[in-house]
Each structure stands twice: as C-alpha cells, then as structure tokens.
C-alpha cells in the first residue's frame, strides 16, 4: 500500500518498526496515555506530524479548558472512591482511571493504600477504607462468572448503600482521548452529590 506515514504504539514490535523505517517510511510511535496532560500533548504532537496543527490545537486546548474547569470545581473535602473490577482488581497511581477520578475531585482509596497501577485489592481492605463511591468497569458479557460475583458481595452492598456505584466504561479508561471528559463529568457529578450529602 506504500504508506507515507505509519502510526504505531510504543509496544508495537520493534523489528517491524525498524523495518518500516529502513524502507524510508516515517513511523511515529505513540505511547499508551496514562495521564491527562499526556492526552493534550500527544494530540498536539500528532497534529504536527499530520500537518493538522490548527485542528488538534483547537481540540487540545478545548480539552484543557474543560479539565481546568473540573479542577477548579474540586471540593475541599474529597469523597472516597475506589475502583473495583472483576476478581477484585483496583487501579491506583499510574492508571488513566485514577487520573479521571482525581481530576473529578474524588480521592482514590488505592492511593491511600499505596497501590500503584492495576493491583489486587482484597475485599476486607476495600471495606475498611469505607468507600463512598465504587467505580466499576464494563462487564464483558451478560453471561455470569464468579469474577463478577464479588461485586455483588453483601459487604459491599452494606458499605455503599443503593446509590454508591458508578460505571465508567472501559473505552474511557483504555483510550486516552479528549472524550474522557465525559467520564470525568460523570464522576464529578457523583463527587458533587456526595459532597452535598456530607453538608
């Protein structure tokens, strides 16, 4: 197909990348985005490569303004939120979902426990942190598995009550693009709701 430009991930096979470069093709490698500032930065970089700097600059700065608005709206007293996925995995510092949670004005309990990235969090430890909000991911199938049974554990139900759960679809936590603002807004609404109840 003789492309002029190939956009590859940083985890794309290095041999392939070297081969493409050897053929004289420009290869741009994009790292997986794990922070909010990265989103705007990578967008601008790609814009430069593609010669679409105006468009990406508009996108990036609009995203930055939106994020700034969320940061300014953060309450002083931050509600405790925990990420809980199938089989009892949580996500802390170094994950995109953690960025979304903290930007939305919530505190991520994984950080209080010193858990970085995606790690296992025993149910007992989660309960003892007394989360007010549980951030859940997409369930991959409507067919049941024990992996998801944990999320229906009575201990969690008693801790969270009826309204303490929020779904953040995997597309927001895997792809670092400006549309993650939608997820931040969802979380910020929860933050506001929990803050209002505390007063």
């Amino acid at each position, binding site marked *: 197909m003789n492309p002029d430009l190939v956009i590859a991930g940083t985890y794309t096979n290095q041999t392939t990348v070297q081969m493409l470069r050897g053929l004289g093709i420009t290869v741009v490698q994009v790292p997986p985005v794990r922070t909010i500032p990265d989103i705007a930065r990578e967008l601008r970089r790609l814009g430069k490569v593609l010669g679409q700097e105006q468009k990406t600059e508009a996108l990036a700065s609009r995203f930055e303004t939106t994020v700034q608005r969320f940061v300014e709206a953060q309450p002083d007293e931050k509600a405790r939120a925990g990420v809980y996925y*199938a*089989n*009892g995995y949580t996500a802390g510092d170094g994950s995109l979902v953690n960025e979304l949670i903290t930007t939305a004005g919530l505190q991520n309990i994984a950080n209080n426990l010193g858990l970085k990235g995606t790690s*296992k969090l*025993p*149910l*007992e*430890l989660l*309960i*003892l*942190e*007394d989360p007010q909000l549980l951030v859940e991911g997409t369930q*991959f*199938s*409507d*067919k*049941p*598995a*024990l*992996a*998801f049974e*944990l999320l229906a*554990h*009575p*201990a969690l139900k*008693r*801790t969270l009550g009826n309204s303490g759960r929020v779904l953040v679809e995997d597309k927001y936590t895997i792809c670092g693009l400006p549309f993650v603002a939608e997820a931040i807004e969802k979380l910020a609404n929860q933050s506001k709701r929990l803050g209002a109840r505390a007063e």
Partner: protein
Amino acid sequence: MTKHPDAPLIVILSLIAIALFLTSLMIGAADLSIAQLIEAAFASEKTPVSIVFWEIRVPRALLGVITGATLGLSGAVLQGLLRNPLAEPGLIGVSSSASLGAVIAIYTGLTITMPYALPAFALLGAAIAAVLLPMLAGGRGQTLTLILAGVAISSIATALTSLALNLSPNPFAAMEIVFWMLGSLNDRSMQHLYIIAPFIVVGWALLLITGKGLNALSLGEETAHTMGVSLPRLRFCAIVGTAASVGAVTAVTGTIGFIGLIVPHLLRKMVGGEPQRLLIPSAIAGACLLTLADITVKLFGPQSNLKLGVLTAIVGAPFFLWLIIKQRRALI
C-alpha cells in the same frame, strides 16, 4: 443423661473446633486486633470493621466448619455403606459431579433468577455419581473396582466442567476452572450460606440416621437383613444425604478432597470400629481439619491466591497412598 461412650472424645473435638473457629475469625487480609474485632462484633451501628467481621469473616469461618463437617460425616457414612476404607466423596467422583452441576447452574445464568437452582443442580450431579458408582464398581465393595469407577466418574465430570467453562462466552469463566477443581472459601457470603442451609440440614439428618443400619451392614448384608434393616432404605438415606450435603457445600466452595478420607481413619480406632459411633466425631473432626486448612491458606496471605484444595491434597494424597499400601499388604 445417659453416659455416651464417646462423650469425652466428642467434647474434646468440639473444644478444638471452637478454638479453631475463633482463630479463623481473627485472621484475614486486614490486620485487625482482637479488641477491635470484639468491639465491632457487638457494636450497635455498622462500622467498616463490623462489616468485615459479620459479612466476610463470620460467613467464611462458618462455611469452613459446615463444609468440613459435611465432608467428614459423608466420608464416614460412605466408608460404612460401601464397606470400603477408601470411599470418600472426592475420590469416588461425587464432589466433582456436584461441581459440574453447580457450574451448569451458574454459567447458564439460571441462578440469577432462581438461587436455589445452585444447590439443586449440585445435588443432582452428586446423586448421579453416587448412584452410578455402585453400578460401575459392582457389589461386594471391592477396593480396586471402586477406586477405578471413582476415577472414571471424576474424570468425566472434570472434563465436562472444563468444557462448560470454556464454552462460556464470559472471558473470566475459563479462569474459574481452578476454583471448581481446587476449591476455596474466599469471599463467600452469608447469602451462600442461606441458600445451602436447607440442603445441609436435610442431608445431615439423612446421614445421621444411617448409623444403626451401617452397624448391622458391617456384619454382612444377610445378617443386616435378618436384623430387620431395610437395605434399600439405608442406601437411599446414605446416597441422598451425601448428595444433598456434599452437593450443597461443593456448590459454593468447589471441590475439596481428602477430608472425608482422612478423618474417619484417624478416629476409627478411638471409637472401636463401630460405624455408627464414627459419625458424629467424624463430622466434628472434619470441621476442625478444614478450618485448620483454611487458616493456613489465610496465613499465606491474599496475594498468594492459594486454593484450599491444594492444601488438603498435599496432606491427603500421601495419606491415600499409605492406605493403598496398607490395603495391598492385607491382600497378600
């Protein structure tokens, strides 16, 4: 009160069981002091510690006791019924068939609308295995054919369980094969206990009334018959009792082996070899052994993800080998 010959043994075993139960409550993923736990246990309002205590630790410890008692008791009954010292729900395929029933009930989504489908399907699986086994193994309780038939039933049930989990469209199901084969008490809840409770009660009652019949049966089928024991009724109680109780516990803990094999052997000499006198001590000792195994699992820590069945097999399998060697010597 009439003096029961095994009263001291039962009292001692019960005290050990209570001590192990309390120890199990104190150990968990979170480091909580005894004072914190006692305070939370009797607190009037809910606190995070009281939720951990009542919703996580208590159900797990209770389930350990119930599962161990079920496996010990059914092991003692099966050994009496089949007149074979190697009979045990795990080895003869009852546990793995119960697992298969439970897997079908859960992964088809049936349990979402009908929670009782879980123990009911497990009972059905266990009952099929328990009925098939004597048919395959033939009468007279020959050790070799019994074990072979058990291995065959186990293999089929295990293979079908793996197949069912691999066919599930849920990507997590295939990973859960490990749970169903090796068993665990991790993160089970009071809801599981409520669902299986009726099956456990009926199963235990049926198993406990087999005592007299098993005593008579130990003298031979004909003698038992002349003593007025109805063999079909005895078989019915033992098989349905095992299927109901072992089926129910397996439905929420997965397959846990060897408890039912080890416990009756350890106690047989102490109760004078009478099958009836073996039943209650086997149940209590089973509870002790399983709780001890679960405490060990918990001490390894939550990150180790060690399965309970691994531990019981490490202790149980060498014991099983030793029994086989002993049996072989007796044959020669």
